């Protein structure tokens, strides 16, 4: 069988089609469910295309102010409260990670200091740590620091989780950049800070975008710390917020759930598709060289 035989072309086409359906169908399904009426979302057999398109679920989502959740922030429905909490946490994590990882990545790439290699290995080893081994001690640490039930606590915790990988990503990237320009600038009397901001920063922007995306997604999607360290629902981010919006004790509002799923997924999908190029090259740069 060669790569131009009809058999090959056909099987390639079939596999690709199956994969497309496998990936696309779940996305399609929640999207149309969000436009179905409440009754239709429960109908047997399920309808592939809504008989009647309605925005009721989105309206319900916008207004969702159910019992026991009166202390809504900013007077918005639950989905938006969780989305705003998620945005606060995620943007803070992204900002902190980009700044700290860029500094550390530059430090690790360009300078030699006594315990550098053990430190780099230690950072790498954190990828192996089970959350389970740290989640309870972190609870105790946070309790003594009064960081339980605060966004600051979640921001710090998630930043700690994403930093090691981000530092490695940036270090590997900076390693590939020629030192000559920086050295010339040093000789011309530029100070270290000027070199970092004027010369290095513009060069590492692709990798920084990748780190930014990576940390934003990690924070937006993070579940574990939010379960352990937050009990105040009004502070919850997107993953934990879901469970408590449209899933009641007696029934699940499929339409409302689907609408909020579409709402929190769409922005990240669009952003991702726009910045995809940077993300993929940044993520894979280290792996293919190592």
């Amino acid at each position, binding site marked *: 069988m060669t790569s131009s035989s009809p058999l090959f072309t056909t099987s390639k086409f079939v596999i690709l089609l199956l994969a497309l359906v496998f990936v696309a169908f779940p996305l399609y399904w*929640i999207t149309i469910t969000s436009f179905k009426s409440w009754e239709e979302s429960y109908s047997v057999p*399920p309808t592939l295309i809504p008989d009647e398109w309605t925005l009721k679920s989105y309206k319900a989502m916008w207004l969702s102010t159910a019992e026991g959740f009166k202390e809504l922030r900013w007077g918005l429905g639950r989905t938006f409260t969780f989305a705003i909490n998620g945005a606060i946490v995620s943007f803070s994590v992204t900002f902190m990670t980009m700044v700290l990882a860029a500094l550390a990545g530059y430090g690790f790439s360009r300078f030699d200091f006594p315990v550098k290699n053990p*430190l780099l290995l230690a950072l790498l080893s954190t990828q192996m740590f089970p959350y389970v081994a740290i989640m309870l001690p972190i609870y*105790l640490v946070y309790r003594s620091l009064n960081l339980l039930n605060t966004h600051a606590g979640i921001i710090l915790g998630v930043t700690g989780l994403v930093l090691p990988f981000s530092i490695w990503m940036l270090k590997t990237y900076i390693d590939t950049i020629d030192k000559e320009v920086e050295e010339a600038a040093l000789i011309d009397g530029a100070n270290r800070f000027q070199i970092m901001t004027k010369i290095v920063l513009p060069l590492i922007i692709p990798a920084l975008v990748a780190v930014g995306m990576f940390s934003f997604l990690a924070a937006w999607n993070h579940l574990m710390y939010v*379960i352990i360290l937050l009990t105040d629902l009004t502070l919850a981010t997107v993953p934990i917020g879901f469970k408590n919006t449209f899933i009641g004790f007696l029934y699940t509002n499929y339409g409302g759930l689907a609408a909020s799923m579409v709402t929190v997924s769409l922005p990240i*999908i669009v952003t*991702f598709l726009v910045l995809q190029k940077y993300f*993929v090259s940044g993520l*894979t740069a280290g792996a293919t060289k190592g």
Partner: protein
Amino acid sequence: MDLTPARKTATLGNFSLRRKDKIYGFLLTLPALLIVFGLIFYPLGLGIINSFRKINLFNMADSTWVGLDNYRILFRYNLFWQSVQNTLVYTIGSTLGAALVGLLLALLLNKQTRTNRLHRGFFLIPWILPGVVVAYMFSFMFGESNGIVGYVLTVIGLLEKSINFFADMDTAMPAVIIATIWLSFPFAMIMYLAGLKTIPKEIEEAAWVDGANLFQRFWHITLPYLKNIIVITTTLMVIWNFNFMDLIYTTTRGGPVNSTEILAIFAYRTAIQQLNFGLTSALGVLWLLALTGFAYLYLRSMKVLGD
């Protein structure tokens, strides 16, 4: 231009022979290191110590040293062993599945054409969605009365009546594995695609000219070039899937009858529901040893790690 000795060393390509530079470099890494050590290594150390203590959450001073008791209790716990077994099935099933789907798609989409680029972008979407969203997505489709999957299977005659796949002992595990494959194969795919790019064109062409068939070319050229990246990617995915609780926490919560009770859920129970910090810490220590041991042995046996 003033060329002091220190500046000369800079021109020689080494930034850090000067003591001042060493300190400067270290200071750059310090803020990040403080966070990582304070929020990962320090708690980890605390967890290791706690695994030898009986913790009273409400009065830490009341906690006592109990030696290996926490470990003994854990080993006698039937649910622990069942969770170990479930975790292995879940981790191996979802990692193998994701690696295979990822490899197949990477091979199909390797050529740099416009449609391939579009496909690649599209196939990455599952990976960026929150695990919880994916979990509900699959709950919709695998659900009982209105689940499209159960309905389709009854129509083609594979099932007598529609079932909730997450609530049936025989189907719950396969269902969570399929959902996990759905959200994790894109990572394997982009890593393999990056690996495929490193294969020199000449070698492929030479094999083509020599009349090697598709399978021979895959086995003798593609696979050897991809080996390292496959090993590293599967190591990462095993570790991630081992730790990944979002999906099961949202769909089955370890049920029905513990058939999807993986260690992450088991730990969540001992920690949050039973507030047994000593036991959870012991579990964490064993877990850490198992993962580190796995990564070391696997990377060694695949000769990715130098001796």
